[in-house]
């Protein structure tokens, strides 16, 4: 069997309230077999939305996989952090789950995955922070930047809930502010 090429780049999108509509405008439009691994960390309500992965699969052409323990990363695929676990990167080839305390009242927490991604993928990490009503994600973006990666926040004017991206902007933990169209074209030209 042919081995998967080692994931060259990791893109992590963190979203909370109001982020699903953004994803529905971006993900279905991604070019086929994009050359990186895409991870979604979304604040979810306990186990009550177990159909989220089905919903995303129905809309996206790339396969969307809800991560199980020690799942392997593949390029051109979308991975969803499961509800009630933090999602970590064990190495460039493997995910890892953790059920430690909630951070920012959230598990999964966006900060936790951003930080782990920065640690493992360094400058090959892209973090994108979308709409939300709390302050998760901004510390993680700072870590991604410190590791030489790229930090993008959704333009608060285009967000249903501007708080989460605004916090990152106020703390100056970003490289670019982008609206939904710009996020889509960024992901489509990324190689």
């Amino acid at each position: 069997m042919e081995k998967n090429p080692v994931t060259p780049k990791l893109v992590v999108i963190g979203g909370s309230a109001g982020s699903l509509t953004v994803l529905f405008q971006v993900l279905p439009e991604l070019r086929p077999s994009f050359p990186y691994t895409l991870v979604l960390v979304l604040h979810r309500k306990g186990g009550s939305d177990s159909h989220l992965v089905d919903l995303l699969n129905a809309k996206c052409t790339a396969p969307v996989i809800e991560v199980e323990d020690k799942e392997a990363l593949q390029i051109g695929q979308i991975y969803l952090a499961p509800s009630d676990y933090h999602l970590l990167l064990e190495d460039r080839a493997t995910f890892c789950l953790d059920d430690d305390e909630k951070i920012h009242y959230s598990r999964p927490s966006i900060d936790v995955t951003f930080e782990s991604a920065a640690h493992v993928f360094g400058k090959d990490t892209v973090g994108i922070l979308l709409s939300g009503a709390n302050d998760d994600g901004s510390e993680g973006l700072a870590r991604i930047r410190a590791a030489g990666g790229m930090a993008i926040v959704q333009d608060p004017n285009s967000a249903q809930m501007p708080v989460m991206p605004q916090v990152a902007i106020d703390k100056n933990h970003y490289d670019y502010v982008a609206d939904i169209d710009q996020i889509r074209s960024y992901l489509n030209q990324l190689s």
Partner: protein
Amino acid sequence: MITDTELTTLLEDIYRQYGYDFIGYSKSSLHRRVQRIFAMDKFPSFAELRYKLLTDDLYVKHFIEELTVNVTEMFRDPHFYKTLREQVIPSLASKPFIRIWHAGCSTGEEIFSVAIMLQEAGLLEKSLIYGTDLNAKVLANVRRGLVPIDQMKKYSENYIASGGPKDFSQYYTAHYGQAILNQKLTEKVITSTHNLVSDSSFNEFDLILCRNVLIYFNKNLQDHVLDLFDKSLSPLGFLALGSKETIRFSGLATYYQQIQPEKIWRKTQ
């Protein structure tokens, strides 16, 4: 920030000096925990943390207790407990004696949940429940049957969602900010420290629960532990893992049958 090399150095020190083997644990999770302890205990440098660990036995005890994640809940994933209640427990009923092992039981919330279901099925009297964990501190809590009272509303909802037929509040009494489980529920529980990495099988069980422990281990260590469970299960015994854990990639998969979609498997030979 602790580097990967520093983390490995610490784990090797701890293994060499104290015999606790964390080398097969997932590095990403350990890294978070060590980073947290480092910040919490305000070490000025990695060298000082290392020195403290090599010279202060008491601190090592604290360090190891803080290294493991002990988060737990009663009736966590209610659908899992519903399946236990409806499909696993009834098939244990005809046994003269029921032996259950909770490996990595933490403060006992999972044990209390199963004890409640056994009592409701009229089987608690003939059951023996072993609760083991690496961390001795959490086991003291299991014996006392204590649960934080502010969690009881949530646990009561979980219990109802799992198909619990009774009034949940009859199972505990409030006492200074704690809920104390009825003594009947903990009478059949035996606790002991047991390290899944280095200790061997110690009995034969009809049901082994090991939920949200394997996620902290790398694949090799997971295989080792699954093998230990295989040796400790009776011929038609059940193995229950956490909702994101699986035996799919291990040698066990071929002769265990899953109760879909739950992470419960039954040994078939």
